[in-house]
């Protein structure tokens, strides 16, 4: 069995054991009174693809949440990379922007909910704003670190081969920074997706976060668990896609390992 197959095999065994423990615990202990067993949850999850919860099927809930996440994630990604490069390349930009970034970054996105409602109302804008905050700073800082990690020997080597400043930037600084950007994008993707529940707490009637909030309001534990499973599986899917893209674009960092 190859390394990859082994990884998948043991991963599957781990999940299976977890589901068994979950099942046994809900069947034989008091946990069963406050939590549905995995068969009920997964049946509810798959049924939701054909029978709508609220006004939408599971596919639509997932797609709506993905759109809510992707729009600000892409905006945060583009802006984060630009600001990170700007701060990494120009000392003045670093001096001006870094204090703001270091001050705002530790504030959890959820703390911005009241202000986001005041600024953007109950529209999609407030949700976008929260998710944007969840990814922008991570991406900006990892990009900044990438620019600063440029190996001086490689810069000298490129200079000696005749590279001018703009060529140094495109042929040395950017490629060095790409793995850092991807690492930031990967972490930010997780944060953005995790923030979806908080964002959908601001009045909504659809989305995977809404499934949880609505389940809480109606005391429907299965729906809450279905929402959690939807978030977990979609999160796994999008981070795997991102990892696939990274392994193609940063083959040089992955192949040797």
């Amino acid at each position, binding site marked *: 069995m190859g390394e990859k197959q082994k990884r998948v095999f043991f991963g599957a065994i781990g999940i299976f054991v977890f589901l068994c423990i979950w099942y046994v615990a809900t069947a034989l202990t008091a946990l069963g009174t406050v939590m549905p067993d995995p068969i009920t949850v997964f049946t509810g999850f798959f049924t939701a693809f054909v029978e709508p919860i609220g006004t939408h099927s599971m596919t639509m809930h997932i797609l709506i949440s993905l759109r809510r996440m992707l729009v600000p994630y892409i905006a945060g990604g583009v802006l984060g990379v630009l600001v990170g490069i700007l701060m990494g390349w120009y000392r003045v930009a670093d001096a001006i922007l870094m204090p703001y970034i270091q001050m705002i970054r530790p504030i959890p996105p959820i703390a911005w909910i009241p202000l986001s409602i005041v600024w953007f109302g109950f529209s999609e804008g407030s949700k976008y704003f929260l998710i944007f905050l969840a990814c922008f700073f991570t991406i900006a800082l990892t990009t900044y670190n990438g620019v600063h990690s440029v190996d001086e020997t490689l810069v000298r080597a490129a200079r000696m*081969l*005749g590279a001018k400043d703009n060529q140094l930037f495109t042929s040395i600084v950017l490629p060095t920074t790409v793995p850092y950007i991807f690492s930031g994008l990967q972490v930010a993707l997780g944060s953005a997706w995790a923030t979806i529940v908080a964002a959908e707490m601001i009045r909504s009637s659809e989305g995977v976060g809404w499934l949880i909030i609505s389940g809480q309001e109606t005391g429907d534990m299965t729906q809450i668990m279905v929402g959690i499973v939807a978030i977990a599986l979609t999160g796994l899917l999008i981070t795997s896609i991102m990892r696939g893209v990274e392994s193609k674009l940063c083959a040089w960092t992955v*192949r040797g390992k």
Partner: protein
Amino acid sequence: MENKQPKVKVQNLTKKFGDLLVLDNLNFEVKEGEFLCIVGPTGCGKTTFLNSLTRLYEPTAGEILVNGIPVDPKKQNISYIFQEYSSFPWLTVEQNIRFGLEIKKTPKAEADANVEEMLDVVGLTKFRNYYPSQLSISMLQRVAIARAFATKPELLLMDEPYGQLDIDLRFKLEDELIKLWKKTGTTVLFITHNIEEAVYLSQKIMVLTNKPTSVKTVLDNPLPLPRDVVSEEFVKLRNKVTDLIRWW
């Protein structure tokens, strides 16, 4: 040999770091196509010397002329092989060798031909699509050498490129270097602390003094190629250079 023009002319080269005088009024010439090894006591400022020569460090005073005009790597075709491994990790072997040609906007057909030739000479044709992280130390240095020669540089500067290699590998790469130098006729300035290496490779050996560094002497190396490191003449010349460097 005697008719050749000076490729590099260094006049009154001085470099200070604050009050510390490192290079003290260096004057010398290197002829077109010459292989000059530069040796000196440890810490005498050999790397500073090469970095000043290429303006990676701005000299405090003096002038460095290549083909009669002030040296400038952006305008002149100069290559530099560093002590540290300097392959670009995100580029394959082939892309690394092509790098300088693309920077200099060499026409594609010519660039392709140069890359193929270099891959062949350093024996990396089969590894053209490998990334540096997949290569051994000797292969990495071969990539650096191929990249440096691919642009057909008029001047090649080498700063202890084989300093971290074991003796077998070093001799192998030194032989490859001589082959490439003879084939291309490039002018080479090779810095080393290894006197045997200097005698093995060079046509001339420049001996530097302790800091503040100046040129102690320049010796001719008339031994025919390929050289035998245990021959009487080789050992005699090696001992002569050792005596010149000895400061104890």
